[in-house]
């Protein structure tokens, strides 16, 4: 089974060239375990694609392969026509924990991305960092240290840092996984608001079905051992999406569909083991 499931969203939008694409991707670890097998996925410009699946389905590995820090065993990944290694300037990564430098203030942490990128002066970086801090609503805590912030605030700093380099592709590995539900919902809405202001394409790994459906243009369900794409579900709701969407029957129906797909995968795995 598997092979190429064509991107429905891309098909709907007409034959636009995908912004990022994964073609026949296979990843084997050195211990012989195949984490991803023949995975193909196209991201149209502006797509927000969530990857969801049981643990071991390789969703985080897929994200890591985009970063170019891990080598590909077969197939290829292209971002704006380039190999991941050459496209680093187009991408930003957001990790599950905020990965802030504890010895830098909030503003200093946001400046880091620009600093590493180079080509800007210190005052330019400062101005830019303040702009982003305002965007994520944290101007008040510019000179605080990360230890003084709550988990949600740290994550907002992390998002601001990621956006500071004006990425075209945002790679997020369960960024809100460690937060409580209220904070998570709030940050989901914030993320969509930022998306309206700065158009980027996103690849988002999550364990939360509700979050995936709320945020995404498409939810890709993966099965494990080896990781393959099981379903590619288009989420048709227009943007901007309002919090009220969460109680919309159509939304709940889609959440149900994705949950069902995940349940099927789990049942099969159990049967296979029995």
């Amino acid at each position: 089974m598997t092979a190429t499931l064509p991107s429905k969203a891309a098909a709907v939008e007409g034959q636009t060239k995908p912004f990022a694409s994964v073609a026949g991707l296979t990843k084997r670890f050195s211990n012989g375990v195949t984490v991803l097998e023949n995975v193909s996925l196209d991201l149209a410009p502006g797509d927000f694609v969530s990857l969801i699946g049981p643990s071991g389905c390789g969703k985080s590995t897929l994200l890591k392969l985009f970063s170019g820090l891990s080598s590909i065993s077969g197939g290829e990944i292209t971002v704006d026509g380039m190999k991941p290694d050459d496209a680093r300037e187009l991408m930003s990564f957001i990790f599950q924990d905020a990965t802030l430098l504890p010895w830098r203030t909030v503003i200093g942490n946001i400046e880091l991305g620009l600093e590493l990128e180079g080509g800007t002066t210190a005052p330019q970086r400062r101005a830019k960092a303040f702009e982003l801090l305002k965007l994520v609503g944290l101007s008040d805590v510019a000179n605080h240290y990360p230890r003084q912030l709550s988990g949600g605030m740290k994550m907002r700093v992390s998002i601001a840092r990621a956006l500071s380099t004006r990425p075209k592709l945002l790679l997020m590995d369960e960024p809100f996984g460690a937060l409580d539900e209220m904070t998570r919902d709030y940050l989901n809405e914030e993320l969509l608001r930022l998306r309206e202001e700065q158009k980027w394409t996103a690849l988002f790994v999550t364990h939360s079905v509700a979050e995936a459906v709320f945020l995404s243009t498409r939810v890709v369900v993966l099965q494990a051992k080896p990781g393959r794409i099981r379903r590619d579900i288009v989420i048709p709701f227009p943007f901007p999406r309002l919090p009220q969407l969460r109680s919309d029957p159509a939304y709940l129906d889609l959440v149900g569909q994705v949950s069902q797909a995940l349940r099927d995968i789990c049942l099969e795995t159990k049967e296979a083991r029995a």
Partner: protein
Amino acid sequence: MKRFLSQLGWPVGVFIAVLALWYCGTKLFEVPAYILPDPLRVISVGWEKRDNLFSAVRISAVEAGGGFILSVIGGVIIAFILAQSALIRRCMFPYTILLQTVPIVAIAPLILMWFGSGIKSVLLIVFIICLFPIIANTTQGLISVDQNLLNLFRMSNASRSQVLFKLRFPHAIPNFFVGLRISGGLSVIGAFTGEMFASSNAVGEGGLGYSIIYANSQLQTDYLFALVIACAALGSCFFFTVVFFEWLFLHNWHASAMKPDAE
């Protein structure tokens, strides 16, 4: 600074209580002065011989401080080299452990033979005794950087020097200070040990180590006590200087240097 002083309050209180107990004890049990002189006598003898005492403290402070600073420079350079690759660490680390396991008194005579008696040998002994804690802790700090942070830097195409100066060095500062605290105390012991071997030729003009041996041989127990106290004071000075700098560098962000929030 105010907090720094109030932190000193309690240990100073204990110090005064011990002095009082000591005084009463010697008076109550009529201990002979050559076995245990009472504290007032120690103070008065220390005052009488203040010129000798201060010159001994000065000599030891220069030896301990000089050796300590050399070991900080040397230790950080070695830690930096060790942090470069796991292979280098595997090759070299067992030998740095020798610094810790070979007793300094065993190599002190050798050093004396090679470098002669005098400050050079003492500095070298202090250097050797202080080196290991700085190497071990700083190396640990340099290599124990969070993998996600490292990935973040790599994904941003950070250069090797950016990873070093913006990530590894700041991250290693808390560990570095752990090493400094240990070595700060050891430096005085090193100076003391060094003097016992190395400066025994300089009759009458030696540091605390030499003076203590001399006072002991003359049965000047009261002066000996004054010297021991000076020794402890010098060690404390080193320790608190290190703690002060640690506070200066870390109080903003690191858990070890933070006070729990005001109750």
